[in-house]
């Protein structure tokens, strides 16, 4: 799904959260929107999926204006995964949870079962198909939520701080899942996060500060710009910080160490 924001502004009461924002996101791409708590990134996600309406400007999805009429069509093509894994589990078992959305779409039983298996397998949760939510970890619940969104054949998947409440294992699991679906189908994925480790899964990283885009580039371009990140309440990856800190220092194997640290930034 192609997304375009044309001069979009949004405010809660008098506080401006998104300010004259212009942004285009290509279909079948992975974009990370990063920023500190309160930078406007979650508001931006809610605007794109039509949970909030812009006070000013226009949002286009697949070149169509997003409004009260078109949202009904687009809702079926969108999936959003929120922060708290406990708030989005509706079924009494993993299977029921995914079936919930499909039933609402009047999908035939045979096809439903097929889809449930297909997407649970994709997120590595097929063996938990009969499990009830209380027996699942936070990371597993988020993976079920992702499978649920994918089963609806969504064209746009937004992960809104989907790992911020998880332990390191859960974060890793969700990261691995994103990597897998990155290669699957032609989905547009938006990762909203303040965690650069998650953002490096994207092809493009956008830094948001006070509702404005302050940097837009590849992960490497954005991670190298430490000043922008610090001014936006973020921190660059440890490996990049070391390269920057020692830029003007002479030390043995400097070139090799810098190259190795860059490689590790995207590998570890």
């Amino acid at each position: 799904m192609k997304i375009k924001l044309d001069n979009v502004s949004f405010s809660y009461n008098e506080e401006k959260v998104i300010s004259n924002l212009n942004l285009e996101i290509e279909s079948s791409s992975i974009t990370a929107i990063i920023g500190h708590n309160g930078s406007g990134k979650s508001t931006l996600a809610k605007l794109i999926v039509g949970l909030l309406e812009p006070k000013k400007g226009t949002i286009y999805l697949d070149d169509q204006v997003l409004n009260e009429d078109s949202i009904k069509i687009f809702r079926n093509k969108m999936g959003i995964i929120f922060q708290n894994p406990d708030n989005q589990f509706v079924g009494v078992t993993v299977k029921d949870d995914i079936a919930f959305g499909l039933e609402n779409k009047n999908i035939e039983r045979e096809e439903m079962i097929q889809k449930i298996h297909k997407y649970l397998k994709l997120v590595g949760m097929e063996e938990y198909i009969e499990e009830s939510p209380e027996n699942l970890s936070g990371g597993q619940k988020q993976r079920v939520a992702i499978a649920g969104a994918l089963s609806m054949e969504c064209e746009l998947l937004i992960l809104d701080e989907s790992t911020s409440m998880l332990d390191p294992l859960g974060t890793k699991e969700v990261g691995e899942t994103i990597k897998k679906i990155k290669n699957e189908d032609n989905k547009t994925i938006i990762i909203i996060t303040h965690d650069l480790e998650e953002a490096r899964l994207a092809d493009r990283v956008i830094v948001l500060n006070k509702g404005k885009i302050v940097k837009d580039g590849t992960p490497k371009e954005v991670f190298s710009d430490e000043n922008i990140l610090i001014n936006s309440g973020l921190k660059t990856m440890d490996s990049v910080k070391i390269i920057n800190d020692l830029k003007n220092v002479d030390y043995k194997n400097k070139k090799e160490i810098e190259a190795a640290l860059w490689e590790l930034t995207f590998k570890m």
Partner: protein
Amino acid sequence: MGINFQNVAFRYSPLGKDVLQDINLEVEENDEFVFILGHTGSGKSTLVQNINALLLPYKGKLNVMDHQVITRYRHPIKLNTKLNKKRYNLNKSKHLFAKSNIPVYSRTLRNIRKHIGLVFQFPEYQLFESTVLKDVMFGPKNFKYSKEECERLAKEALELVDFPKELYDRSPFLLSGGQMRRVAIAGILAINPDVIILDEPTVGLDPKGKDTLMNLLVDIQKKTHKSIIIISHDMNVVARYAKRIIVMKQSRIVYDGEKRRLFEDLDKLHEYNLDLPTVSGLSMELKKKNLINYKHLPLTIEELETVIKGGDIYE
């Protein structure tokens, strides 16, 4: 007196399995900065909830400051009164088994909670009052301080967490995530506890918010000398700030000691399901490529930079 566990065990239901087993632990009242680590479900949160008597052990002996927590007697017993020692024949009791594990709500449990300030995960979700100041005053109000005293304690606590005065009358729900968390911590500091326990205080905060909060806790300890116990999964925070580490695995304490010894023992880390701090992982990869060499594994950015520049990390 601090906190002292002797062979403590806890289970949620009488026929359930032990969630804490054979816990022996001592934490001083002052100047400790302890991190409790462990996989989800290892018993970390249960351990700290036993410390402030939200949960009561069914076996063993638990002393919190000058109180002994014993479920058998249905309320904690003040150790330093002769009458109590005589009444409960404490000198002769070899072990203290609870008859039931149902928490006992008594006024004396309140005394323990006054000594131990427990900040839960995502404490900002527990804010409820109409203004920041009122929210922070809620704790002392529960301990029957006068209104003036509550206000004084609340203001002192808000100052300690470096919260701007002009926002005292603002609704806590109009604050940023980091500010809300500071208000929630101030709410605990306002009851002036001897020991502060925080369950995953940095989770969900952005990097700047994380640093600010951790530096704030270090600062609070410097000013007040109170011991601080933190449950965390974030190894980068642990590597930077911990003085002492306790690791829990399957309901037991499996490690109690300093951080470097733990992080340098990769087999143990693997056994405890713990990750390395990012910098330590980078260091090992660079060493593998023969680009750097070190005697002690770097745990922080500063340490790795020292090693890259050809220096040594001194203990």
